[in-house]
């Protein structure tokens, strides 16, 4: 397929949020809209070219390639099984000189006229990655997906407990997320600094906010996870209207079924992940939180009764949390 013989692809939508922040559910929900298509985490914009992306993947402590391989298997080879996954890897290898933006455009061409929605938490660790996405797609829309810092911190603690229970070890990306002051440390570091996930919450949302300061108002929107969970019809309709796509009941109802995404389950051997493991295990829309979270209560996961820092509280209040 030569993408340059087709009509231009619609401007993509990027979901920006830290890892373990509901973004797998949210992106899959967007992707169920009849005019959108969500792919799993491609992590494409950590690099300028696919060659650099491939080399980055070798160095990470998570399965960085799985999402893109699954997307290519699904969109180019028509499904996700061990053979198409193998073919997808080779398809990517043959395109190593391509820019990462061009690769995303090729995938967008496959789902045309639907607009592509993408979410890769790796993008927000480095402002350069978000700027690269904006440079390659200057009219892209950016959704800043936020959640209460307590909810995020509890998700990080739960993921650590889950990793210990299932894999007997905590991967370094998760250790860094839990103890962000050590985030710049080498992945092979054996340090085990104090568990304090609020720091990552603050640093990563600040990265997003700083990047979005330079993005025109019409191209960005903040969405609170809790609003989507408590009143999905209203929250999703507002998003659809902002994106100038259908907001009728049929379209919104489809969005409430993230489990229908072709990426809402574990993939075949060789490309198992590409989304948050909790989402892959149980991709149905979660229940809304029973009570609003509190910014002032001490942390349940620390014995020293520590609570949120002043900076975290201030940023959370800017987002409308109390």
């Amino acid at each position, binding site marked *: 397929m030569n993408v340059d013989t087709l009509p*231009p692809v619609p401007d993509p939508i990027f979901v920006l949020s830290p890892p373990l922040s509901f973004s797998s559910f949210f992106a899959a929900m967007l992707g169920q809209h009849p005019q959108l298509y969500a792919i799993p985490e491609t992590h494409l914009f950590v690099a300028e070219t696919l060659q650099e992306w491939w080399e980055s993947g070798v160095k990470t402590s998570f399965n960085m390639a799985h999402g893109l391989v699954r997307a290519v298997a699904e969109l180019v080879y028509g499904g996700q099984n061990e053979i198409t996954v193998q073919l997808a890897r080779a398809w990517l290898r043959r395109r190593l000189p391509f*820019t990462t*933006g061009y690769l995303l455009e090729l995938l967008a061409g496959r789902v045309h006229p639907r607009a592509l929605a993408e979410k890769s938490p790796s993008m927000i660790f480095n402002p350069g990655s978000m700027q690269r996405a904006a440079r390659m797609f200057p009219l892209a829309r950016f959704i800043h997906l936020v959640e209460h810092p307590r909810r995020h911190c509890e998700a990080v603690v739960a993921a650590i407990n889950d990793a210990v229970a299932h894999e007997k070890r905590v991967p370094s990306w998760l250790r860094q997320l839990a103890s962000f002051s050590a985030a710049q440390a080498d992945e092979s570091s054996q340090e085990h600094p104090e568990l304090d996930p609020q720091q990552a919450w603050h640093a990563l949302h600040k990265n997003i906010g700083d990047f979005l300061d330079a993005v025109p108002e019409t191209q960005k929107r903040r969405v609170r996870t809790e609003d989507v969970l408590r009143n999905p019809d209203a929250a999703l309709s507002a998003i659809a209207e902002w994106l100038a796509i259908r907001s009728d009941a049929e379209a919104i109802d489809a969005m409430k079924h993230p489990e229908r995404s072709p990426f809402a389950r574990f993939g075949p051997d060789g490309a198992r992940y590409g989304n948050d493991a909790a989402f892959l295990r149980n991709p149905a829309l979660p229940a809304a939180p029973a009570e609003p979270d509190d910014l002032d209560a001490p942390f349940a996961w620390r014995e020293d009764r520590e609570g949120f820092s002043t900076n975290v509280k201030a940023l959370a209040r800017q987002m409308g949390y109390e």
Partner: protein
Amino acid sequence: MTTAGVSTPCDTPGTMSQILAILGPPRSFTTVVSAMLGQHPQMYGLPEVHLFGADTIAEWWRQCAEATFNMDHGLVRVVAQLFFGDQTEDNVRRAAGWLQRRAHFTTGLLIETLAGRVQPRILVDKSPSIVYRVETLRRAHAMFPQARFLHLVRHPRGHGESVMKYLRERRKLGPVPPGHWLLHLAAYPNSDENAGTSSDIDPQRAWLALHRNICEFLDFLPAHQTLRVRGEELVGEPDHGLREVLDWLGLRTDDEAVEEMKRPERSPYACYGPPSARFGNDRAFLQDPVLRPARAERHSLDGPLSWRGDGGEFSAEVRELAQRFGYE
């Protein structure tokens, strides 16, 4: 395969790379001639895209960042027009992203992509930057071995006076920075106004060097791929001059086609673009893109040069080359 009268073998059925490159130094009627040719129903005229100065689009972007003029505007406008439908501010921004995503393309592949978009029309490229280095001309030929090359010449006196007039106009906007393309053209091979005395300003040197580059390149091409025309005749007597070019290209020469060519102002690039991509062509043309045959004045190779205070005249080399081009 034969399309639009020009026989060109294609590497892939269904694709084509019909290119006509106009070769001439800046201030040689290249803008208006390109726009005129582009109005022919079997051709499509580009603004200045400056692609062949680089091997890849990544390198082209780096050159744009260092250029003393808005080098990216022409290509961004073309992509907006051809791939996004028009040249609104949103679409030139989209076009810039489209080009960023194609940083790995060779410049030739990018031209081929544009050519594919306008086929079966022949793409007309004119980027004066191409004539500064013979290697650049050879790159264009290596990528498009069947391309046609139109060598557009102008009397060296008319050229020099045009350069000086343009330099005066530019100075009204403020000091001309060292390295500026116009200063380089006027003081060739220098490009710093303060590097020497006023006698360093003498555009005949650029005229000679750049036309020599073109001649050196064209000498190695088959005769049927090249044509030399005097810009004064194309602009001053378009009915005759344009038909000579059309005959060479094997394209329609009927009155309807030729009349359309006399309306360069109808080109989608014959006006200023939106804020992010204002230029892409000569400013004078953008301000007043109508064909004015009276601009094609007659000049003499004899006598002192108006831009030199010492009564200096054309060098023997300039006179010899100008006479070879048919000037007196």
